[in-house]
């Protein structure tokens, strides 16, 4: 029973952080129908930003988050004006491969500058502390803080999208770009803003993630695929959908834990022979495939 509860708790916690990871992808997709392969690389850069700032200045990693968000925002806007703007005119295959090129570029720049070794944070106010909830469930303080801040940021972006003038302009652009242009909305600037918010939110998520996840230049692809799955499940372009889908995907990544639970509770011999932990993320990819085939619109999507 302990395993079951702690798996659920761990899945929900990681799910809340994954929500922030996938938020940017769903906004960018919604606004300009482009799939960003470099999304995970933005996350990786956010992780490095927080890591290096915290190590260099000695302040708590959680205090460096605004800097991470700022770096992501600037990078997102720069990517839009420097590169993505030109891709939008081309066919879909060029867009896919173009953002893949961006991903390769960022990843190998990180490799060139920071080296290929794993780096992790070892200091900070919360590192190493944990709460015990009873029944064997232990929550590391870093994860709890990351999940909490992730929800706060998510809510802030949701409010920005729905309650402000500029957010409404962004939503209008994603619903119908041409119509929005006729209404006098500067759609190109809105696209740049979407990339800025997308980049900023995902680097912020990276800053949260680095508190308990070691970083290397190759960490991005896994998160890109997870984010794709979340966005597909929630519906491409849907912000609240991404949140609930992220919780589901968080639970999916904990399938090995559930597997262990069933194995030990019912004492099924052959189940303990399956190397389940090596399939941890296979379930995520499989989930993407099944979701797309069964319900291509996702849970909350309006686009197909």
């Amino acid at each position, binding site marked *: 029973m302990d395993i079951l509860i702690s798996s659920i708790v761990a899945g929900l916690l990681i799910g809340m952080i994954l929500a922030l990871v996938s938020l940017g992808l769903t906004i960018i997709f919604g606004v300009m*129908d482009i*799939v960003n392969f470099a999304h995970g690389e933005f996350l990786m850069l956010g992780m490095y930003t927080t890591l290096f700032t915290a190590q260099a200045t000695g302040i708590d990693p959680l205090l460096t988050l605004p800097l991470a968000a700022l770096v992501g925002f600037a990078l997102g806007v720069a990517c839009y004006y420097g*590169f993505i703007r*030109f*891709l939008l005119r*081309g*066919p*879909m*295959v*060029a*867009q*896919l*491969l*173009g953002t*893949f*090129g*961006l*991903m*390769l*570029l960022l*990843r*190998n*720049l990180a*490799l*060139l500058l920071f*080296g*290929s070794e794993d780096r992790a944070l070892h200091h900070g106010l919360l590192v190493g502390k944990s709460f015990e909830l009873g029944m064997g469930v232990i929550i590391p303080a870093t994860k709890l803080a990351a999940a909490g801040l992730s929800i706060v940021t998510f809510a802030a972006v949701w409010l920005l999208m729905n309650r402000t003038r500029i957010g409404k302009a962004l939503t209008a652009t994603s619903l119908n770009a041409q119509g929005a242009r006729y209404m006098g909305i500067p759609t190109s600037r809105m696209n740049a803003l979407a990339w800025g918010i997308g980049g900023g939110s995902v680097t912020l998520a990276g800053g949260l993630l680095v508190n308990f996840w070691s970083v290397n*230049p190759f960490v991005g*692809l896994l998160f890109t*695929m997870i984010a*794709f*799955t979340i966005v*597909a499940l929630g519906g*491409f372009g849907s912000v609240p959908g991404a949140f609930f889908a992220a919780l589901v995907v968080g639970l999916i990544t904990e399938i090995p834990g559930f597997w262990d639970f069933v194995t030990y509770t019912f004492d099924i011999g052959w189940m303990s022979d399956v*190397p389940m932990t*090596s*399939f941890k*993320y*296979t379930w995520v*990819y*499989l989930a*993407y*495939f099944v979701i*797309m*085939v069964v319900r*291509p619109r996702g849970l909350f999507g309006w686009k197909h």
Partner: protein
Amino acid sequence: METLKNAFDFSDFPRSDLVVAGVLALALAAFPFLSPSSFAMATMIQFFMFSIYGMGWNTIGGYGGQVDLGKAQYVGIGAYTTAVMLIRWDIPFWVSMPVGMCLSVMWSFIIGYPLFRLKGHYFAIATIATSLVLKDLFEVWDFVGAARGLEISPIKYHPPDFLRLIFRDDIYYYYIIFAFFLAGIVYINWFRKSRLGFQLRSIKDNEEVARSLGINVHWAKIKTYAIATAFVSVAGSFHACYIKNIEPEDTMSLDISILIALMAMLGGAGSLWGPIIGAGILIPLKSYLKEWLGARAGLVGIDLIIYALIIMVISAKEPRGIWGIVERVRRRKRRR
């Protein structure tokens, strides 16, 4: 008979194209006699293999317009079938290659049926997902050597072994893959003029119109996907015999899938020569960049940075590829 005649009939190309193609083919046939370095030889074999991958991709991705980013899974199936059959049961290449092809095609039908209900980005990402699932599976499957992969040790055989395709000298591999390459060109030349080829192009232009003309869109896509798969699988089987050491990471990784699609796009998707031009530029570029820059201390990754910049510039500035430039120049000349 009619089919054969069609396959060898290249007369709808301008004469200049055919002259250039013929000269290049002769140069390729003579290449091993120019005493190239073994590195150049290996690069050329890679070029042929990737041309075949690219030609396969071009059927579904170029003529059909369905962006498939999961071709590496079929490289893996082909390579693993050949390697497993050779190592475990000593079955020669010429038997295991068709078997691998059948397995790949079967797998392509299984996943193709649900896959082609999707379109555009959704399809592209779903192909990546299936490829990654298969790779994860191969990484833990002990029968195929798990993450360590499989190794064909040439000591057990007596090279040159034409049945099992085990040679000590690259020149044999060169001519065998060259023959596959020429056969591939002939097949694609037939394919683009076949009924299915025309159906696909109309699907690419407008799916609704194609459907209203009575084309079974879903089935046409699945059939073409199977053809593309067969191409990739054959070259994958060859890959196993040539490299002799296969692991999931370098036969089935996403980078291979992307490279295949990228080559076809760089050369010009949807044309017979496109993927070949693309492979002819990208493969030597990639391997020489790696040779010159990849191993330098302190510059790890610089070769891939240059490569990434090239990808970005092409996709932003010339998404229709080199063949697109050629055709544009030609049209301008004709207008004058």
